[in-house]
Protein backbone atom coordinates (compact mmCIF):
# COMPACT_ATOMS: atom_id res chain seq x y z
CA UNK A 1 0.00 0.00 0.00
CA UNK A 2 1.54 3.30 -1.05
CA UNK A 3 0.28 6.82 -0.75
CA UNK A 4 0.43 9.41 -3.51
CA UNK A 5 -0.47 12.96 -4.21
CA UNK A 6 -1.66 13.21 -7.78
CA UNK A 7 -1.96 16.45 -9.64
CA UNK A 8 -2.89 17.06 -13.22
CA UNK A 9 -2.80 19.65 -15.90
CA UNK A 10 -5.09 18.82 -18.81
CA UNK A 11 -5.70 21.34 -21.58
CA UNK A 12 -8.80 19.89 -23.19
CA UNK A 13 -12.10 20.06 -21.23
CA UNK A 14 -13.46 16.76 -22.42
CA UNK A 15 -10.26 14.92 -21.62
CA UNK A 16 -9.99 16.62 -18.29
CA UNK A 17 -13.46 15.43 -17.34
CA UNK A 18 -12.68 11.88 -18.31
CA UNK A 19 -9.45 11.91 -16.38
CA UNK A 20 -11.10 13.45 -13.34
CA UNK A 21 -13.73 10.75 -13.42
CA UNK A 22 -11.11 8.06 -13.64
CA UNK A 23 -9.12 9.56 -10.80
CA UNK A 24 -12.25 9.58 -8.66
CA UNK A 25 -12.34 5.78 -8.98
CA UNK A 26 -8.96 5.42 -7.32
CA UNK A 27 -8.31 8.59 -5.41
CA UNK A 28 -9.98 11.21 -3.32
CA UNK A 29 -10.23 14.75 -4.68
CA UNK A 30 -8.77 17.12 -2.11
CA UNK A 31 -8.36 20.32 -4.09
CA UNK A 32 -8.91 21.59 -7.58
CA UNK A 33 -6.80 19.24 -9.75
CA UNK A 34 -5.18 17.60 -6.72
CA UNK A 35 -6.01 14.10 -5.50
CA UNK A 36 -4.74 11.88 -2.73
CA UNK A 37 -4.57 8.14 -3.21
CA UNK A 38 -3.66 5.10 -1.17
CA UNK A 39 -3.06 2.28 -3.59
CA UNK A 40 -1.86 -1.28 -3.73
CA UNK A 41 0.71 -2.14 -6.36
CA UNK A 42 -2.01 -3.61 -8.58
CA UNK A 43 -4.32 -0.64 -8.32
CA UNK A 44 -1.46 1.69 -8.98
CA UNK A 45 -0.48 -0.17 -12.15
CA UNK A 46 -4.11 -0.23 -13.25
CA UNK A 47 -4.62 3.46 -12.69
CA UNK A 48 -1.42 4.39 -14.48
CA UNK A 49 -2.35 2.18 -17.36
CA UNK A 50 -5.82 3.66 -17.71
CA UNK A 51 -4.45 7.18 -17.44
CA UNK A 52 -1.88 6.57 -20.11
CA UNK A 53 -4.64 5.64 -22.49
CA UNK A 54 -6.50 8.91 -21.93
CA UNK A 55 -3.50 11.18 -21.76
CA UNK A 56 -2.17 13.17 -24.67
CA UNK A 57 1.51 13.00 -24.13
CA UNK A 58 2.31 16.21 -25.98
CA UNK A 59 -0.20 18.40 -24.14
CA UNK A 60 -1.24 16.97 -20.77
CA UNK A 61 0.62 16.11 -17.64
CA UNK A 62 -0.14 14.08 -14.55
CA UNK A 63 2.27 13.80 -11.67
CA UNK A 64 2.31 11.14 -8.94
CA UNK A 65 4.17 12.23 -5.84
CA UNK A 66 4.92 9.16 -3.80
CA UNK A 67 4.80 9.80 -0.08
CA UNK A 68 6.84 7.85 2.41
CA UNK A 69 5.46 7.48 5.92
CA UNK A 70 7.59 10.36 7.16
CA UNK A 71 6.25 12.62 4.45
CA UNK A 72 2.78 11.57 5.45
CA UNK A 73 3.37 12.45 9.08
CA UNK A 74 4.55 15.85 7.96
CA UNK A 75 1.39 16.83 6.16
CA UNK A 76 -0.20 19.97 7.52
CA UNK A 77 -3.78 20.72 6.58
CA UNK A 78 -5.14 24.21 7.09
CA UNK A 79 -8.70 25.30 6.56
CA UNK A 80 -11.46 23.20 5.15
CA UNK A 81 -9.72 19.90 4.47
CA UNK A 82 -9.59 16.75 6.52
CA UNK A 83 -7.54 13.61 5.99
CA UNK A 84 -9.32 12.08 2.97
CA UNK A 85 -8.87 8.57 4.31
CA UNK A 86 -9.96 9.22 7.87
CA UNK A 87 -10.02 6.11 9.98
CA UNK A 88 -11.35 3.96 7.14
CA UNK A 89 -14.51 3.01 9.03
CA UNK A 90 -17.66 3.77 7.07
CA UNK A 91 -21.02 3.09 8.67
CA UNK A 92 -24.34 3.57 6.92
Amino acid at each position, binding site marked *: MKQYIISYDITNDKRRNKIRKLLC*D*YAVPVQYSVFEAR*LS*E*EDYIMLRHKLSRLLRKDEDSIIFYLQCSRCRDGIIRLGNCSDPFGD*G*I*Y*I*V
Partner: protein
Amino acid sequence: MAEHNISNEQHYFPISSVAEILYCPRNFYYRVVEGAEDSNHHLLEGKLQEERRDERQRLVREGYRQDRSIHVSSEKLNLYGIVDIVEQGKEIYPVEYKKGFRKESLNDDVQVCAQAMALEEKLGQDINRGYIYYAGSKARREVIFDEDLRLMVENAVGLARNIALSGEIPPPLADNRCEGCALVNRCLPFEVKGIKENKAKAVRPQPGINLGRVLYVDEQGASLYKKGERVLVTKDQIKFKDIPLCNLDQVVLVGNVNLSSQLIKLFLGRGTEVHFISTKGKYYGCLQAALSKNSVLRIAQHRAYQKQEERLLYASEFVRGKLSNMRTNLLRYNRSLNNHSIDEAVSRIKNIIKRLEKAKDLNELMGLEGAGSRDYFSVFGLLIKDRVPFDFNKRSRRPPEDPANALLSFSYSLLLKDVITAVQVVGFDPFIGFLHRSDFGRPALALDIIEEFRPVVADSVVLTALNKGVIAEGDFEYRMGGCFLSETGRKKMYRLYEERRKEMITHPVFGYRISYLRTIELQARFLAKVLTKEIDGYKPFLVR
Protein backbone atom coordinates in the same frame (compact mmCIF):
# COMPACT_ATOMS: atom_id res chain seq x y z
CA MET B 1 12.63 -46.40 -11.92
CA ALA B 2 9.39 -46.54 -13.81
CA GLU B 3 7.66 -44.91 -10.90
CA HIS B 4 10.23 -42.19 -10.92
CA ASN B 5 9.50 -41.42 -14.54
CA ILE B 6 5.83 -41.13 -13.87
CA SER B 7 6.36 -38.63 -11.11
CA ASN B 8 8.70 -36.66 -13.31
CA GLU B 9 6.20 -36.50 -16.06
CA GLN B 10 3.68 -34.95 -13.77
CA HIS B 11 5.91 -32.03 -13.00
CA TYR B 12 6.10 -29.49 -15.73
CA PHE B 13 7.27 -26.24 -14.25
CA PRO B 14 6.67 -22.72 -15.47
CA ILE B 15 9.96 -21.31 -16.74
CA SER B 16 9.56 -18.16 -14.67
CA SER B 17 9.18 -20.13 -11.44
CA VAL B 18 12.32 -22.10 -12.12
CA ALA B 19 14.27 -18.92 -12.64
CA GLU B 20 12.91 -17.66 -9.33
CA ILE B 21 14.23 -20.70 -7.55
CA LEU B 22 17.68 -19.16 -7.69
CA TYR B 23 16.29 -16.18 -5.88
CA CYS B 24 14.37 -18.10 -3.25
CA PRO B 25 13.55 -21.83 -3.26
CA ARG B 26 10.83 -21.21 -0.70
CA ASN B 27 9.10 -18.84 -3.06
CA PHE B 28 9.13 -21.60 -5.68
CA TYR B 29 7.60 -24.00 -3.15
CA TYR B 30 4.75 -21.64 -2.36
CA ARG B 31 3.94 -20.94 -5.96
CA VAL B 32 4.26 -24.41 -7.36
CA VAL B 33 3.51 -26.78 -4.50
CA GLU B 34 0.99 -24.72 -2.55
CA GLY B 35 -0.33 -22.90 -5.61
CA ALA B 36 0.10 -19.45 -4.11
CA GLU B 37 -1.43 -16.81 -6.27
CA ASP B 38 1.02 -14.80 -8.22
CA SER B 39 -0.85 -11.75 -6.99
CA ASN B 40 -2.47 -9.93 -9.86
CA HIS B 41 0.72 -8.64 -11.30
CA HIS B 42 0.93 -11.01 -14.21
CA LEU B 43 -2.63 -10.58 -15.30
CA LEU B 44 -2.09 -6.90 -15.19
CA GLU B 45 1.06 -7.03 -17.20
CA GLY B 46 -0.96 -8.64 -19.96
CA LYS B 47 -3.41 -5.80 -19.84
CA LEU B 48 -0.57 -3.40 -19.97
CA GLN B 49 0.44 -4.71 -23.38
CA GLU B 50 -0.41 -1.39 -24.90
CA GLU B 51 2.08 0.52 -22.88
CA ARG B 52 4.61 -2.16 -23.63
CA ARG B 53 3.95 -2.22 -27.32
CA ASP B 54 4.77 1.46 -27.49
CA GLU B 55 8.11 0.74 -25.96
CA ARG B 56 8.82 -2.19 -28.16
CA GLN B 57 8.09 -0.45 -31.39
CA ARG B 58 11.38 1.29 -31.11
CA LEU B 59 13.13 -2.00 -30.79
CA VAL B 60 12.36 -3.74 -34.01
CA ARG B 61 15.61 -4.35 -35.82
CA GLU B 62 16.24 -3.94 -39.48
CA GLY B 63 15.69 -7.19 -41.29
CA TYR B 64 14.20 -8.97 -38.24
CA ARG B 65 10.70 -10.26 -37.83
CA GLN B 66 9.13 -10.21 -34.37
CA ASP B 67 6.71 -12.73 -32.97
CA ARG B 68 5.18 -12.03 -29.60
CA SER B 69 4.00 -14.18 -26.72
CA ILE B 70 5.19 -17.51 -28.07
CA HIS B 71 4.26 -20.57 -26.03
CA VAL B 72 7.11 -23.00 -25.61
CA SER B 73 7.67 -26.20 -23.70
CA SER B 74 10.54 -28.57 -23.23
CA GLU B 75 10.17 -32.26 -22.71
CA LYS B 76 13.80 -32.67 -21.79
CA LEU B 77 13.61 -30.08 -19.06
CA ASN B 78 9.95 -30.45 -18.17
CA LEU B 79 9.41 -26.76 -18.58
CA TYR B 80 6.79 -24.60 -20.17
CA GLY B 81 6.38 -20.90 -20.56
CA ILE B 82 5.78 -17.92 -22.73
CA VAL B 83 8.55 -16.11 -24.56
CA ASP B 84 7.77 -12.41 -24.76
CA ILE B 85 9.36 -11.90 -28.16
CA VAL B 86 11.09 -14.15 -30.64
CA GLU B 87 13.10 -12.27 -33.22
CA GLN B 88 13.98 -13.95 -36.44
CA GLY B 89 16.36 -12.78 -39.16
CA LYS B 90 19.90 -13.92 -39.78
CA GLU B 91 19.65 -15.48 -36.36
CA ILE B 92 16.79 -16.41 -34.11
CA TYR B 93 16.69 -15.47 -30.45
CA PRO B 94 14.33 -14.80 -27.54
CA VAL B 95 13.86 -11.41 -25.97
CA GLU B 96 12.55 -11.19 -22.43
CA TYR B 97 10.81 -8.03 -21.32
CA LYS B 98 11.49 -6.63 -17.84
CA LYS B 99 9.85 -3.66 -16.24
CA GLY B 100 12.72 -2.13 -14.32
CA PHE B 101 16.11 -0.73 -15.10
CA ARG B 102 18.98 -2.48 -16.76
CA LYS B 103 20.77 -4.74 -14.32
CA GLU B 104 22.89 -7.85 -14.26
CA SER B 105 20.69 -10.61 -12.94
CA LEU B 106 21.41 -14.28 -12.97
CA ASN B 107 17.69 -15.06 -12.61
CA ASP B 108 16.92 -13.17 -15.77
CA ASP B 109 19.78 -14.85 -17.59
CA VAL B 110 18.62 -18.28 -16.51
CA GLN B 111 15.10 -17.45 -17.57
CA VAL B 112 15.95 -16.47 -21.17
CA CYS B 113 18.38 -19.33 -21.40
CA ALA B 114 15.65 -21.78 -20.40
CA GLN B 115 13.36 -20.17 -22.95
CA ALA B 116 16.04 -20.57 -25.59
CA MET B 117 16.60 -24.21 -24.69
CA ALA B 118 12.89 -24.86 -25.08
CA LEU B 119 12.87 -23.00 -28.38
CA GLU B 120 15.85 -25.04 -29.58
CA GLU B 121 13.88 -28.17 -28.87
CA LYS B 122 10.90 -26.83 -30.78
CA LEU B 123 12.84 -25.55 -33.77
CA GLY B 124 15.64 -28.10 -33.85
CA GLN B 125 18.16 -25.31 -34.23
CA ASP B 126 20.88 -23.89 -31.98
CA ILE B 127 20.37 -20.58 -30.29
CA ASN B 128 23.50 -18.90 -28.97
CA ARG B 129 22.31 -15.67 -27.55
CA GLY B 130 19.24 -13.80 -26.40
CA TYR B 131 18.33 -10.43 -24.99
CA ILE B 132 16.66 -8.93 -22.00
CA TYR B 133 14.92 -5.67 -22.61
CA TYR B 134 14.62 -3.29 -19.66
CA ALA B 135 11.72 -0.92 -20.08
CA GLY B 136 12.94 1.39 -17.34
CA SER B 137 16.17 2.16 -19.17
CA LYS B 138 14.83 1.40 -22.67
CA ALA B 139 17.84 -0.77 -23.32
CA ARG B 140 18.53 -4.40 -24.04
CA ARG B 141 21.24 -6.55 -22.61
CA GLU B 142 22.78 -9.45 -24.44
CA VAL B 143 22.94 -12.85 -22.77
CA ILE B 144 25.23 -15.55 -24.16
CA PHE B 145 23.96 -19.08 -23.65
CA ASP B 146 27.23 -20.79 -22.79
CA GLU B 147 27.80 -24.14 -21.13
CA ASP B 148 27.82 -22.66 -17.63
CA LEU B 149 24.49 -20.94 -18.03
CA ARG B 150 22.90 -24.02 -19.56
CA LEU B 151 24.18 -26.08 -16.66
CA MET B 152 22.64 -23.58 -14.30
CA VAL B 153 19.29 -24.02 -15.99
CA GLU B 154 19.55 -27.78 -15.58
CA ASN B 155 20.50 -27.44 -11.93
CA ALA B 156 17.61 -25.11 -11.28
CA VAL B 157 15.25 -27.61 -12.85
CA GLY B 158 16.79 -30.37 -10.69
CA LEU B 159 16.29 -28.31 -7.57
CA ALA B 160 12.71 -27.56 -8.58
CA ARG B 161 12.03 -31.23 -9.09
CA ASN B 162 13.47 -32.10 -5.68
CA ILE B 163 11.33 -29.57 -3.90
CA ALA B 164 8.20 -30.60 -5.75
CA LEU B 165 8.77 -34.32 -5.19
CA SER B 166 9.80 -34.12 -1.55
CA GLY B 167 7.07 -31.61 -0.76
CA GLU B 168 9.35 -30.19 1.91
CA ILE B 169 9.31 -26.50 2.40
CA PRO B 170 12.72 -24.82 2.09
CA PRO B 171 13.74 -22.55 4.98
CA PRO B 172 13.09 -18.83 4.69
CA LEU B 173 15.80 -16.44 3.51
CA ALA B 174 14.88 -13.92 6.19
CA ASP B 175 17.08 -11.14 4.89
CA ASN B 176 16.57 -7.99 2.85
CA ARG B 177 15.67 -10.03 -0.21
CA CYS B 178 12.33 -10.68 1.49
CA GLU B 179 11.48 -7.01 1.55
CA GLY B 180 9.80 -6.78 -1.82
CA CYS B 181 8.53 -10.37 -1.89
CA ALA B 182 4.85 -10.66 -2.68
CA LEU B 183 4.58 -13.74 -0.47
CA VAL B 184 6.02 -12.26 2.68
CA ASN B 185 2.71 -12.32 4.56
CA ARG B 186 2.23 -15.98 3.87
CA CYS B 187 5.87 -16.87 4.41
CA LEU B 188 6.58 -14.91 7.61
CA PRO B 189 10.32 -15.36 7.07
CA PHE B 190 11.56 -13.51 10.13
CA GLU B 191 9.01 -15.00 12.47
CA VAL B 192 9.64 -18.55 11.31
CA LYS B 193 13.38 -18.07 11.59
CA GLY B 194 12.93 -16.61 15.06
CA ILE B 195 10.80 -19.51 16.21
CA LYS B 196 13.16 -22.08 14.76
CA GLU B 197 16.21 -20.54 16.33
CA ASN B 198 14.36 -19.99 19.55
CA LYS B 199 15.21 -16.36 19.68
CA ALA B 200 12.00 -14.60 19.06
CA LYS B 201 11.75 -10.83 19.47
CA ALA B 202 14.36 -9.68 16.99
CA VAL B 203 11.77 -9.81 14.25
CA ARG B 204 10.64 -7.11 11.92
CA PRO B 205 6.91 -6.81 11.33
CA GLN B 206 5.64 -6.96 7.79
CA PRO B 207 2.99 -4.51 6.73
CA GLY B 208 -0.37 -6.24 6.42
CA ILE B 209 -2.28 -6.14 3.20
CA ASN B 210 -5.56 -5.64 5.00
CA LEU B 211 -5.73 -2.18 6.49
CA GLY B 212 -9.07 -2.85 8.14
CA ARG B 213 -10.95 -0.37 5.96
CA VAL B 214 -14.53 -1.40 6.27
CA LEU B 215 -18.00 -0.42 5.13
CA TYR B 216 -20.98 -1.44 7.27
CA VAL B 217 -24.40 -1.07 5.73
CA ASP B 218 -27.16 -1.40 8.30
CA GLU B 219 -29.71 0.82 6.60
CA GLN B 220 -32.64 -1.51 5.99
CA GLY B 221 -33.68 -1.50 2.36
CA ALA B 222 -30.51 0.19 1.13
CA SER B 223 -28.81 -0.95 -2.07
CA LEU B 224 -25.19 -1.20 -3.10
CA TYR B 225 -24.23 -0.53 -6.71
CA LYS B 226 -21.11 -0.37 -8.74
CA LYS B 227 -20.28 2.94 -10.31
CA GLY B 228 -17.02 2.96 -12.19
CA GLU B 229 -14.66 1.40 -9.69
CA ARG B 230 -16.62 2.69 -6.72
CA VAL B 231 -19.27 1.44 -4.37
CA LEU B 232 -22.42 3.47 -4.16
CA VAL B 233 -24.80 3.04 -1.22
CA THR B 234 -28.27 4.43 -1.88
CA LYS B 235 -31.84 4.24 -0.66
CA ASP B 236 -34.87 6.02 -2.09
CA GLN B 237 -32.71 8.17 -4.37
CA ILE B 238 -30.61 9.28 -1.43
CA LYS B 239 -26.91 8.74 -1.81
CA PHE B 240 -25.34 7.66 1.47
CA LYS B 241 -21.83 6.80 0.45
CA ASP B 242 -19.59 6.75 -2.59
CA ILE B 243 -16.29 5.02 -1.89
CA PRO B 244 -13.55 3.88 -4.27
CA LEU B 245 -13.26 0.10 -4.07
CA CYS B 246 -9.54 0.35 -3.57
CA ASN B 247 -10.24 2.07 -0.26
CA LEU B 248 -12.14 -0.89 1.14
CA ASP B 249 -10.92 -4.21 2.49
CA GLN B 250 -14.20 -5.44 3.91
CA VAL B 251 -17.93 -4.89 3.52
CA VAL B 252 -20.44 -6.01 6.13
CA LEU B 253 -24.10 -6.11 5.16
CA VAL B 254 -26.54 -6.23 8.01
CA GLY B 255 -30.12 -7.34 7.59
CA ASN B 256 -32.07 -6.42 4.50
CA VAL B 257 -29.54 -4.80 2.19
CA ASN B 258 -29.31 -5.34 -1.57
CA LEU B 259 -26.18 -5.98 -3.52
CA SER B 260 -25.98 -5.70 -7.31
CA SER B 261 -24.54 -8.64 -9.18
CA GLN B 262 -22.05 -6.41 -10.97
CA LEU B 263 -20.70 -5.38 -7.62
CA ILE B 264 -20.58 -8.97 -6.43
CA LYS B 265 -18.37 -9.84 -9.39
CA LEU B 266 -16.13 -6.92 -8.65
CA PHE B 267 -15.82 -7.87 -4.97
CA LEU B 268 -14.94 -11.42 -5.86
CA GLY B 269 -12.43 -10.31 -8.43
CA ARG B 270 -10.71 -7.96 -6.05
CA GLY B 271 -10.89 -10.27 -3.08
CA THR B 272 -12.85 -7.72 -1.02
CA GLU B 273 -14.35 -9.56 1.95
CA VAL B 274 -18.13 -9.42 2.09
CA HIS B 275 -20.00 -10.68 5.16
CA PHE B 276 -23.68 -11.04 5.86
CA ILE B 277 -25.09 -10.64 9.36
CA SER B 278 -28.66 -10.42 10.57
CA THR B 279 -29.89 -7.46 12.56
CA LYS B 280 -29.96 -9.77 15.57
CA GLY B 281 -26.30 -10.43 15.07
CA LYS B 282 -26.54 -13.89 13.57
CA TYR B 283 -23.66 -14.58 11.23
CA TYR B 284 -24.99 -15.83 7.89
CA GLY B 285 -21.90 -16.21 5.78
CA CYS B 286 -19.68 -14.51 3.30
CA LEU B 287 -18.98 -14.16 -0.37
CA GLN B 288 -16.13 -16.39 -1.23
CA ALA B 289 -14.17 -16.77 -4.44
CA ALA B 290 -13.29 -20.28 -5.59
CA LEU B 291 -11.63 -22.47 -2.97
CA SER B 292 -7.97 -21.64 -2.49
CA LYS B 293 -5.45 -23.88 -4.12
CA ASN B 294 -3.61 -24.72 -0.94
CA SER B 295 -4.51 -28.39 -0.96
CA VAL B 296 -1.30 -29.26 0.91
CA LEU B 297 -2.66 -27.44 3.94
CA ARG B 298 -6.14 -28.92 3.73
CA ILE B 299 -4.72 -32.42 3.54
CA ALA B 300 -2.59 -31.73 6.61
CA GLN B 301 -5.60 -30.31 8.41
CA HIS B 302 -7.73 -33.36 7.68
CA ARG B 303 -4.90 -35.68 8.67
CA ALA B 304 -4.48 -33.94 12.03
CA TYR B 305 -8.23 -34.10 12.54
CA GLN B 306 -8.18 -37.87 12.11
CA LYS B 307 -5.54 -38.37 14.77
CA GLN B 308 -7.20 -38.17 18.17
CA GLU B 309 -4.00 -37.29 19.98
CA GLU B 310 -3.03 -34.50 17.69
CA ARG B 311 -6.55 -33.18 17.63
CA LEU B 312 -6.66 -33.09 21.40
CA LEU B 313 -3.37 -31.23 21.51
CA TYR B 314 -4.60 -28.38 19.33
CA ALA B 315 -7.97 -28.33 21.04
CA SER B 316 -6.35 -27.95 24.42
CA GLU B 317 -4.21 -25.06 23.18
CA PHE B 318 -7.32 -23.22 22.01
CA VAL B 319 -8.90 -23.70 25.43
CA ARG B 320 -5.71 -22.65 27.14
CA GLY B 321 -5.68 -19.49 25.04
CA LYS B 322 -9.23 -18.68 25.90
CA LEU B 323 -8.98 -19.33 29.63
CA SER B 324 -5.61 -17.60 30.01
CA ASN B 325 -6.88 -14.50 28.29
CA MET B 326 -10.05 -14.56 30.39
CA ARG B 327 -7.90 -14.71 33.47
CA THR B 328 -5.74 -11.83 32.23
CA ASN B 329 -8.86 -9.77 31.59
CA LEU B 330 -10.04 -10.32 35.15
CA LEU B 331 -6.61 -9.56 36.59
CA ARG B 332 -6.37 -6.37 34.62
CA TYR B 333 -9.74 -5.05 35.76
CA ASN B 334 -9.21 -6.19 39.31
CA ARG B 335 -6.11 -4.04 39.66
CA SER B 336 -8.41 -1.13 40.39
CA LEU B 337 -11.41 -3.08 41.72
CA ASN B 338 -9.57 -5.26 44.22
CA ASN B 339 -12.56 -7.52 44.49
CA HIS B 340 -12.24 -10.72 46.45
CA SER B 341 -14.67 -12.75 44.30
CA ILE B 342 -12.69 -11.82 41.20
CA ASP B 343 -9.50 -12.95 42.92
CA GLU B 344 -11.10 -16.27 43.65
CA ALA B 345 -12.32 -16.72 40.09
CA VAL B 346 -8.82 -15.89 38.85
CA SER B 347 -7.24 -18.59 40.94
CA ARG B 348 -9.92 -21.13 40.06
CA ILE B 349 -9.33 -20.48 36.36
CA LYS B 350 -5.63 -20.84 36.94
CA ASN B 351 -6.14 -24.27 38.44
CA ILE B 352 -8.32 -25.32 35.55
CA ILE B 353 -5.65 -24.23 33.08
CA LYS B 354 -3.17 -26.49 34.89
CA ARG B 355 -5.46 -29.45 34.39
CA LEU B 356 -5.85 -28.96 30.63
CA GLU B 357 -2.71 -30.90 29.81
CA LYS B 358 -4.02 -33.97 31.54
CA ALA B 359 -7.38 -34.03 29.83
CA LYS B 360 -7.75 -37.45 28.29
CA ASP B 361 -10.31 -36.69 25.67
CA LEU B 362 -12.30 -33.91 24.09
CA ASN B 363 -15.21 -34.39 26.48
CA GLU B 364 -13.03 -33.78 29.47
CA LEU B 365 -11.50 -30.79 27.76
CA MET B 366 -14.91 -29.33 26.97
CA GLY B 367 -15.85 -29.86 30.60
CA LEU B 368 -12.86 -27.88 31.77
CA GLU B 369 -13.54 -25.16 29.26
CA GLY B 370 -17.12 -24.92 30.45
CA ALA B 371 -16.08 -24.73 34.09
CA GLY B 372 -13.50 -22.02 33.39
CA SER B 373 -15.94 -19.96 31.35
CA ARG B 374 -18.55 -20.22 34.10
CA ASP B 375 -16.04 -18.93 36.63
CA TYR B 376 -15.22 -16.04 34.35
CA PHE B 377 -18.79 -15.05 33.61
CA SER B 378 -19.82 -15.45 37.24
CA VAL B 379 -17.73 -12.36 37.99
CA PHE B 380 -17.93 -10.64 34.61
CA GLY B 381 -20.81 -8.50 35.88
CA LEU B 382 -18.48 -7.07 38.52
CA LEU B 383 -16.33 -5.57 35.79
CA ILE B 384 -19.25 -3.43 34.68
CA LYS B 385 -19.26 -0.19 36.60
CA ASP B 386 -22.04 0.45 39.10
CA ARG B 387 -23.58 3.36 37.32
CA VAL B 388 -24.54 1.09 34.45
CA PRO B 389 -28.05 -0.10 35.23
CA PHE B 390 -27.54 -3.52 33.71
CA ASP B 391 -27.94 -6.83 35.40
CA PHE B 392 -25.58 -9.53 34.47
CA ASN B 393 -25.57 -12.85 36.24
CA LYS B 394 -24.63 -15.42 33.71
CA ARG B 395 -23.98 -15.88 30.03
CA SER B 396 -27.16 -16.49 28.09
CA ARG B 397 -27.48 -17.13 24.39
CA ARG B 398 -30.16 -17.86 21.83
CA PRO B 399 -31.62 -15.47 22.67
CA PRO B 400 -29.52 -13.31 24.98
CA GLU B 401 -31.65 -12.32 27.95
CA ASP B 402 -30.13 -9.04 29.05
CA PRO B 403 -28.19 -6.14 27.54
CA ALA B 404 -24.75 -7.39 28.54
CA ASN B 405 -25.46 -10.76 26.94
CA ALA B 406 -26.88 -9.06 23.87
CA LEU B 407 -23.69 -7.08 23.53
CA LEU B 408 -21.50 -10.15 24.02
CA SER B 409 -23.36 -12.11 21.37
CA PHE B 410 -23.23 -9.26 18.92
CA SER B 411 -19.57 -8.66 19.53
CA TYR B 412 -18.77 -12.35 18.95
CA SER B 413 -20.54 -12.24 15.59
CA LEU B 414 -18.40 -9.31 14.51
CA LEU B 415 -15.29 -11.13 15.64
CA LEU B 416 -16.39 -14.27 13.86
CA LYS B 417 -16.39 -12.52 10.50
CA ASP B 418 -12.74 -11.62 10.95
CA VAL B 419 -11.70 -15.07 12.12
CA ILE B 420 -13.54 -16.68 9.21
CA THR B 421 -11.77 -14.35 6.83
CA ALA B 422 -8.38 -15.22 8.33
CA VAL B 423 -9.07 -18.93 8.11
CA GLN B 424 -10.09 -18.62 4.47
CA VAL B 425 -7.25 -16.35 3.45
CA VAL B 426 -4.76 -18.87 4.78
CA GLY B 427 -6.47 -21.62 2.82
CA PHE B 428 -7.95 -23.83 5.56
CA ASP B 429 -11.10 -25.84 5.33
CA PRO B 430 -13.18 -23.73 7.74
CA PHE B 431 -15.49 -26.61 8.60
CA ILE B 432 -12.92 -28.99 10.03
CA GLY B 433 -12.08 -27.99 13.57
CA PHE B 434 -10.25 -29.60 16.44
CA LEU B 435 -12.07 -28.45 19.55
CA HIS B 436 -15.45 -27.81 18.01
CA ARG B 437 -17.40 -30.59 16.46
CA SER B 438 -17.31 -30.50 12.71
CA ASP B 439 -20.53 -32.34 12.11
CA PHE B 440 -23.09 -29.58 12.44
CA GLY B 441 -22.14 -27.63 9.37
CA ARG B 442 -20.55 -24.98 11.51
CA PRO B 443 -17.28 -23.23 10.67
CA ALA B 444 -15.59 -25.31 13.36
CA LEU B 445 -12.03 -24.18 12.76
CA ALA B 446 -13.01 -20.52 12.94
CA LEU B 447 -14.85 -21.29 16.18
CA ASP B 448 -11.65 -22.88 17.50
CA ILE B 449 -9.41 -19.97 16.68
CA ILE B 450 -11.94 -17.40 17.85
CA GLU B 451 -11.69 -18.74 21.43
CA GLU B 452 -8.40 -17.09 22.31
CA PHE B 453 -9.60 -13.77 20.89
CA ARG B 454 -13.01 -13.61 22.52
CA PRO B 455 -11.84 -12.19 25.84
CA VAL B 456 -9.26 -9.78 24.43
CA VAL B 457 -11.15 -8.41 21.47
CA ALA B 458 -14.87 -8.98 21.89
CA ASP B 459 -15.35 -8.90 25.68
CA SER B 460 -13.25 -5.82 26.04
CA VAL B 461 -15.39 -4.05 23.42
CA VAL B 462 -18.46 -4.86 25.51
CA LEU B 463 -16.86 -3.58 28.69
CA THR B 464 -15.78 -0.37 26.96
CA ALA B 465 -19.26 0.12 25.54
CA LEU B 466 -20.83 -0.21 28.96
CA ASN B 467 -18.25 1.39 31.22
CA LYS B 468 -17.70 4.42 29.01
CA GLY B 469 -21.45 4.82 28.71
CA VAL B 470 -21.33 4.65 24.91
CA ILE B 471 -24.20 2.22 24.91
CA ALA B 472 -27.19 3.10 27.04
CA GLU B 473 -30.49 1.50 27.93
CA GLY B 474 -32.23 3.07 24.96
CA ASP B 475 -30.00 1.13 22.62
CA PHE B 476 -31.81 -2.14 23.28
CA GLU B 477 -35.06 -3.69 22.19
CA TYR B 478 -36.86 -6.59 23.82
CA ARG B 479 -38.30 -9.02 21.32
CA MET B 480 -39.51 -12.58 21.59
CA GLY B 481 -38.18 -13.13 25.07
CA GLY B 482 -34.77 -11.85 24.15
CA CYS B 483 -32.79 -8.66 24.34
CA PHE B 484 -31.31 -7.20 21.16
CA LEU B 485 -29.43 -4.12 20.07
CA SER B 486 -31.43 -1.46 18.27
CA GLU B 487 -30.19 0.07 15.05
CA THR B 488 -28.48 2.95 16.81
CA GLY B 489 -26.97 0.51 19.29
CA ARG B 490 -25.62 -1.66 16.51
CA LYS B 491 -24.04 1.28 14.75
CA LYS B 492 -22.26 2.26 17.91
CA MET B 493 -20.99 -1.29 18.30
CA TYR B 494 -19.60 -1.41 14.74
CA ARG B 495 -17.44 1.57 15.47
CA LEU B 496 -16.28 0.34 18.86
CA TYR B 497 -15.47 -3.06 17.49
CA GLU B 498 -13.60 -1.70 14.47
CA GLU B 499 -11.61 0.65 16.64
CA ARG B 500 -10.66 -2.25 18.87
CA ARG B 501 -9.55 -4.51 16.07
CA LYS B 502 -7.36 -1.75 14.68
CA GLU B 503 -5.76 -1.07 18.04
CA MET B 504 -2.03 -1.62 18.07
CA ILE B 505 -0.45 -3.87 20.65
CA THR B 506 2.99 -5.27 21.27
CA HIS B 507 3.03 -8.83 20.02
CA PRO B 508 3.70 -11.09 23.02
CA VAL B 509 6.14 -13.32 21.13
CA PHE B 510 7.75 -11.14 18.49
CA GLY B 511 7.76 -7.88 20.36
CA TYR B 512 6.68 -5.73 17.45
CA ARG B 513 3.71 -3.40 17.19
CA ILE B 514 0.80 -4.93 15.38
CA SER B 515 -2.97 -4.57 15.25
CA TYR B 516 -5.37 -7.14 16.72
CA LEU B 517 -6.66 -7.61 13.21
CA ARG B 518 -3.24 -8.78 12.07
CA THR B 519 -2.70 -11.01 15.08
CA ILE B 520 -5.78 -13.02 14.09
CA GLU B 521 -4.33 -13.66 10.66
CA LEU B 522 -0.92 -14.43 12.17
CA GLN B 523 -2.42 -17.07 14.47
CA ALA B 524 -4.13 -18.73 11.51
CA ARG B 525 -0.85 -18.70 9.60
CA PHE B 526 1.03 -20.21 12.52
CA LEU B 527 -1.51 -22.94 12.88
CA ALA B 528 -1.02 -23.68 9.17
CA LYS B 529 2.72 -23.89 9.61
CA VAL B 530 2.31 -26.20 12.58
CA LEU B 531 -0.08 -28.47 10.72
CA THR B 532 2.23 -28.70 7.72
CA LYS B 533 5.03 -29.48 10.18
CA GLU B 534 7.16 -26.50 9.45
CA ILE B 535 7.21 -25.38 13.07
CA ASP B 536 6.42 -27.28 16.26
CA GLY B 537 3.51 -26.84 18.58
CA TYR B 538 0.70 -24.32 18.23
CA LYS B 539 0.87 -21.54 20.79
CA PRO B 540 -2.24 -19.49 21.41
CA PHE B 541 -2.12 -15.72 21.36
CA LEU B 542 -1.76 -14.72 24.99
CA VAL B 543 -2.05 -11.12 26.10
CA ARG B 544 -0.17 -9.86 29.07
